[in-house]
């Protein structure tokens, strides 16, 4: 390995370089633009993200490692990068017109979002423990700032502070796990860790402890039990566009890291395969993950029923969704991973969409309380119908993408044999529970009459357009999803 390697790597690092360049341009532009015009930096951020997207799609290279084996370029990473890019594009478009951020400068805001994007890109492609940690922190720290971006609002500050504390503890524990793993194996490269673990005599207990500690970090990113405590408060307190972003993109990034880490260190194959999942001794990883998945589903769904603030409800719902997706990780084979990736892709649209409706209602009617959604469905039918579609998609009902995604998860579980039938049944029970609270919103909007004197305000054409762009894929992916399924299937190649 020579220094040349770093320079050569840059060639395959083009999307990330474009993002870095855009960040710098946004910061400089923000200095030049007057305060009231600072929102114009959105154009730059948007253009830069589109540029990175194009660069990513044009990049047709065989899987390879960059920068002294710390970053991998492979179809698996690319799939997740596409998810991040779509999420960021939508969030920029939403933030552009939301009222929540009117009193703040936008330049920093957009550059922070782009830094987060960069961090997620790195998360999805890290193959080195140090790099995993750094990229995870890069995403976390920008998230803290963004969550507290409305610095004059107490709840926003509270969100940021809670987020920092939980994040600090979780990633600290994870780092400790990494250090144990390094002590066991003497390397930070996850591929080499696998080799060393296969060859040497390690104490199973130490490995279990290390992996569990590492799970704390990943679990915190995907908001699974018992590392979920931060998410309701942060989701409620953060500016809603950021909440929307946090609920899809960093979660997907967390899953990307989790899948890659488990697949490479514990299974160690470029094409995942169930049989080898058990290769590393008597450690019951699938059972541990299954237990976490079941608890996450139950907790998220049961607590969501009691919420009155819609952002909190969606926060718990997103915890529950992390549980569903983990069902795929339990069967760490082609099908399970495919189902997870497909789910994350669909989840991106349906959850962003649900949050966008929340933003629109909060901007025009000034409420985040579910009770105050009363009768809105009849007053504003377009919004009501679309919200209904998103709620049913999140429940997993056909003909929406949410159904197909859940269908794939269940099919992976059933195909894995009778040992995980119980988890499938837990998944069913939870889907039914989840309908109860999703339907509550629908019920408020349609089944109850609007209070006297509710004024219908004109919707914003920009937001309506963005909303339509989110609802189309949600429905389309429930009717015809072959091409996306093939894309996800072909992305199951790891470096």
């Amino acid at each position, binding site marked *: 390995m020579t220094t040349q390697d770093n320079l050569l790597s840059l060639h395959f690092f083009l999307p990330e370089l474009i993002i870095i360049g855009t960040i710098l341009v946004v910061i400089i532009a923000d200095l030049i633009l007057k305060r009231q015009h600072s929102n114009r930096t959105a154009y730059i951020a948007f253009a830069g993200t589109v540029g990175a997207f194009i660069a990513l799609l044009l990049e047709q290279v065989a899987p390879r490692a960059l920068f002294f084996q710390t970053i991998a370029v492979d179809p698996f990473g690319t799939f997740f990068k596409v998810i991040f890019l779509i999420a960021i594009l939508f969030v920029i478009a939403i933030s552009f017109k939301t009222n929540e951020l009117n009193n703040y400068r936008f330049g920093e805001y957009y550059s922070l979002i782009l830094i987060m994007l960069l961090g997620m890109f790195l998360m999805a492609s890290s193959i080195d423990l140090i790099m995993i940690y750094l990229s995870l922190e890069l995403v976390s720290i920008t998230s803290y700032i963004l969550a507290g971006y409305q610095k004059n609002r107490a709840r926003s500050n509270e969100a940021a502070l809670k987020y920092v504390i939980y994040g600090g503890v979780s990633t600290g524990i994870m780092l400790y796990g990494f250090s144990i793993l390094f002590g066991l194996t003497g390397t930070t490269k996850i591929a080499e860790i696998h080799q060393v673990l296969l060859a040497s005599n390690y104490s199973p207990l130490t490995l279990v402890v290390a992996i569990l500690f590492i799970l704390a970090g990943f679990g915190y990113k995907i908001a699974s039990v018992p590392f979920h405590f931060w998410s309701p408060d942060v989701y409620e307190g953060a500016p809603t566009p950021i909440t929307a972003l946090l609920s899809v993109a960093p979660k997907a990034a967390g899953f990307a890291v989790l899948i890659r880490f488990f697949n490479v260190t514990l299974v160690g194959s470029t094409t995942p395969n169930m049989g080898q999942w058990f290769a590393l001794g008597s450690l019951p990883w699938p059972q541990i993950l299954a237990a976490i998945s079941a608890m996450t589903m139950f907790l998220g769904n049961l607590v969501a029923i009691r919420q009155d603030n819609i952002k909190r409800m969606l926060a718990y719902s997103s915890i529950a969704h992390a549980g569903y997706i983990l069902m795929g990780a339990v069967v760490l084979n082609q099908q399970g991973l495919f189902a997870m990736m497909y789910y994350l892709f669909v989840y991106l649209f349906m959850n962003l969409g649900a949050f966008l409706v929340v933003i629109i209602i909060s901007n025009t009617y000034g409420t985040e309380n579910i009770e105050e959604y009363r009768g809105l469905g009849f007053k504003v039918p377009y919004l009501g119908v679309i919200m209904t579609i998103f709620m049913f998609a999140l429940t997993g*009902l056909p003909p929406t993408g949410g159904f197909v995604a859940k269908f794939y998860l269940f099919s992976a579980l059933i195909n894995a044999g009778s040992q995980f039938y119980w988890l499938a049944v837990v998944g069913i029970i939870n889907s039914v529970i989840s*309908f*109860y609270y999703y339907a509550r919103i629908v019920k408020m909007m349609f089944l109850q009459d609007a209070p006297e004197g509710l004024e219908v305000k004109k919707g914003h054409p920009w937001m309506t357009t963005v909303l339509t762009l989110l609802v189309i894929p949600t429905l389309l992916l429930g009717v015809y999803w072959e091409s996306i399924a093939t894309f996800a299937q072909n992305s199951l190649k790891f470096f």
Partner: protein
Amino acid sequence: MQGHLLTWATFLPVIGMAVILLIPSGRKDATKIVAAVATGIQLFVTILLFAGFDRSATGMQFVEQYTWIKTFNIQYFMGIDGLSLPLVILTALLSFIGVFASWNTEKSVKGYFALFLLLDAGMMGVFVSLDFFLFYIFWEVMLLPMYFLIGIWGGPRREYAAIKFFLYTFAGSILMLLAMLALYFAVEPHTFNMLTLMQSNYGHTFQIVVFLALFVGFAIKVPIFPFHTWLPLAHVEAPTAVSVILAGVLLKMGTYGLLRISFPILPEGTVWFAVPMAILGVINIIYGAMCAMAQKDIKKLVAYSSINHMGIVLLGMAAMTKAGMSGAIFQMFNHGTITAMLFLSVGVIYDRAHHREIDGFGGLGVKMPIYTGIVAIAFFAGLGLPGFSGFISEAMTFIGAFPVYTTLTILATLGIILNAGYFLWAFQRIFLGELNEKYADIPEINGREIFTLAPLAVIVIFLGVYPMPILNLFTHAVDKLINVLNYGASMAMF
């Protein structure tokens, strides 16, 4: 159009729905006319199906088969045989009538008819799908409009009724999803094609487990005791036309699912579970009849009579004899028409009196002679009087079930006596005796209402005299099913 009749039958309502959504919400009449035209053409298409159906052929007819999702081997596969054709006709007929029964809807007409048509499409799709995945999609699609139709346009407890209906059926259907996946992975190459699934062999335990999962899913829909508690509530709270669809078509989906999927694919599981099914059927018959007898609300009475009638279907199916099976299928069709008449009649009186207390009326026969006559037909058909279609199917069922489950059949016939009891008693309290002064100037049934009830009355009487047009349709389908089940029984012996 000739080649794609089933697709047309299924998606015509969807086209109607799209047109309705484009009509400005003020144009109420235009909306209703579009709905009537869409369901009318659909009914015409199903009549074409009925006319073109080859009664001597054994296989599926009007087949349409295309690849949908190649990577998971999901097909767009439709076709009908004698088992599904009566229900296809029933669906189209009741949907068409339902549009007219909802003519006086005031609250957001556009939304109502759009959802009604979507419901129609979902039901039709269930009966014509031969790919399990497609079947499941239609099965679920139908839930959503039903939730709203009960929840928005229903009675005072509509919200509770809607959510209870949804949670019950959703739990059942998602269990069915797991069973479906288990079947999918059990055959090589993996497929959802029902015909292929029928030709494969499965292990004994596998059959039992999958059968039970499917059974719960279907039982909730039928509904079979103890999964029936959503039914009285939903039927009572739903608006008239929706009650008609609920009782007339939706309940049939459960028994249709058993006959189309569980029985032929899992014959060993079926044979293993036949006796419990027969017992559940008899419980349905007696329990339904007794609950009906105790009701003060006439709509609830009709709702419980549905539980009773579906028990007869279940008993006939569980007998697995030719007469029993044919009786069951015929009973499915007849219950659809009879219960539709019953609910429509209840709707007529509710629209005038705004309550449904059986004891709150009296002597209406004097003021509403035509209406009384029609209700008499419906009630007599409902209690299984000879001369009406219900009698033939019930008799066939009991004849078929008697040699197999003698004691149970005797018990079941006792339930039928109770039927006569509550129907006649209710009839007496509402129409006979002294006229309740409150209803001295109650208006007679109007032309639109007669238009919804008369076709059904004609069918009920005609089939009671000459049932062959319907019975002819499914002789081969029943033979085939019995062969499969006999094979299953012989396998279970070893």
